[in-house]
């Protein structure tokens, strides 16, 4: 013992390193984070705060803040029939596209997860819509929805059902846009869900098979619970995407007919770049942001309870 103590005494007390040395690791970390900070700052945070700032002002033609009006822009929005109509259309659109889109993608993913000859072909086909741009897809759908030469009406004509004005009838337009949106989103959802399915350990199914569980029993008690994190992710992403749909509206309907497809993002665009009302447009943008935020928080709060993470 004594020898150890003597030895310890001979070691000179180390001097406390200076601030510069002590922060070395922190400074290195900052350096690595810097590119992200700059990118996010320029493309996300600055525009976000600028939008919130502008939403409290009336703006001039160039989009610069001119008169401070406080919450007037928001008050105006909540009283405006057009905006309330947009909000209603957006909610309907979300309800049309998200559940149907996820269910269809899940169905296709379950089909494509089977081990069959040539299944790779179907996997490619089902996920191919991911590779089609919104603009190109919209143009294709524009032709399919065409009242006289469109595929849908021709098909209906075979059964002597009268023509439907898919994009021109206010009662049908939102539904039609929703169909095309579901089609466009299917590829991505399908691919993610298929990935999730393939991650499930094959032995779980073999074990269930030995126990005598049928396909639907396995689906309910193994596949869906094991897939829940993926499903949760896909539902969240689809919700946000649906709230933010723009391209297909611009090409298919331009918000018409009779404002029936004037979703909030399109309405923001119109307000800002057609009517040059950057103030109210910003207020709408902030409103949309809050909506998505609330929905996502709610989803995490209530949806995530049913999610099983590995």
């Amino acid at each position, binding site marked *: 013992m004594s020898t150890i103590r003597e030895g310890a005494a001979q070691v000179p007390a180390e001097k406390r390193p200076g601030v510069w040395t002590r922060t070395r690791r922190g400074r290195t970390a900052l350096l690595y984070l810097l590119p992200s900070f700059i990118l996010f700052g320029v493309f996300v945070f600055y525009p976000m705060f600028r939008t919130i700032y502008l939403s409290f002002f009336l703006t001039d033609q160039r989009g610069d803040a001119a008169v401070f009006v406080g919450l007037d822009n928001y008050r105006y929005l909540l009283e405006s029939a057009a905006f309330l109509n947009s909000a209603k259309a957006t909610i309907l659109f979300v309800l049309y596209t998200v559940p149907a889109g996820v269910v269809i993608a899940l169905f296709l993913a379950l089909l494509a997860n089977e081990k069959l000859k040539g299944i790779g072909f179907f996997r490619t086909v089902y996920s191919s819509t991911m590779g089609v741009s919104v603009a190109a897809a919209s143009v294709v759908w524009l032709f399919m929805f065409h009242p006289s030469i469109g595929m849908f009406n021709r098909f209906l004509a075979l059964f002597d059902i009268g023509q439907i004005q898919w994009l021109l009838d206010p009662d049908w337009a939102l539904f039609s846009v929703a169909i095309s949106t579901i089609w466009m989103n299917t590829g991505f959802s399908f691919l993610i869900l298929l990935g999730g399915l393939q991650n499930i350990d094959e032995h*779980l199914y073999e*074990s269930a098979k*030995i126990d005598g569980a049928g396909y639907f029993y396995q689906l309910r*008690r193994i596949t869906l619970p*094991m897939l829940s994190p993926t499903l949760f992710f896909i539902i969240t992403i689809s919700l946000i995407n649906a709230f933010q749909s723009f391209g297909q509206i611009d090409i298919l309907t331009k918000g018409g007919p009779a404002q029936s497809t004037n979703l909030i993002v399109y309405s923001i665009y119109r307000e800002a770049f057609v009517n040059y009302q950057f103030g109210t447009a910003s207020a709408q943008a902030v409103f949309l942001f809050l909506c998505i935020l609330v929905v996502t928080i709610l989803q995490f709060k209530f949806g995530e309870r049913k999610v099983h993470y590995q």
Partner: protein
Amino acid sequence: MKKVELIDVSKSYDRQKDVISNINVTIEPGEFFVLVGPSGCGKSTMLRMIAGLEEITGGTLKIGEKTANRLPPSKRDLSMVFQNYALYPHLTVEENITFGLDVKKVPKADRKKRALDTAEMLGLTDYLKRKPRELSGGQRQRVALARAIVSEAPICLMDEPLSNLDAKLRAHMRSEIRRIQKRLGITMIYVTHDQVEAMTMGDRIMILHSGKIQQIGSPIEIYNHPANPFVATFIGSPPMNLAAADVRKEASLLVLANGTEIVMPKGSLDEIAEERVTLGIRPEFLMPPVTGEGLPVFDAEVTNVEVLGHETVFSFVAGEGEWTAKWNGQWQIQPGDRIPIAVDTGSACLFSLEDGRLIRKAADRQRTVTKEGAAL
């Protein structure tokens, strides 16, 4: 309790080349049957064929007295433990154990009772409400075991169930699985690549190599009388020493490639027709001359020494390769030394050089403790 019979069973994936062929074996009711072999020998495939997870491409599989080739897994009256346990990560231990009973619509009270009984048998009572990820490897292994036992199936298949455990736990679970199997009288078919598991657990062992049966028999029988050089080197650690040797019948001598002469007991080579054979001898039958008094001795150059405390394992040059000897106690031997080694030639096996057939059996080595001996 049911027997499992495989008649001329074979398996091929491309309908041309068999990965498993000519499997003929009857596994008796209540038997602990071990399938052992190196990786890729087809043992897991065979087990999966018995389970019905893999199609049988040739031959007949009988479970009980019924042909089971086309039966779905659930109708084969068996349970299975997978190598990675295949526990449902989203279900609690209790739900995992009762999963199979839920499927079979066993009444709820019955389900609960059986799950609790099984959990108690395996010491899992305190963990019933936990998820698999909150358990240690050994506990997970027990849950997998519980799941197989709770089904009360007469046949249980296990696919390398202990390979993910550490050495100490593995030794413990070996005896525990064995104890449960005996207690419940299940017919057990157990796949492993570990020869120690095979030796210690099996009533009978089947050794597979590249899809073919090498030997079936009780562990001691296989250890003492391996049917061919493959079995000889696969079972036992360190493996049996092998070397090609010329037969000199007149002098009752075996001559290795480097000129080492080993004197065999008089007349033991008389019935050997071959001129060259493979000589096989286990490391424990190469002894220090002091212990092996009266046995033939040869000199050899030591190449490597490992002193393990209770025994000393060293290798030396013999024939074209190296042999290993295992001596009791701690021996001061240095690599490069030339030392005399006694050979218990009665325990040597001779294999045919061409087809590997066993041509001369080693003498039996089993001993019994006599009453007088115990009294002393």
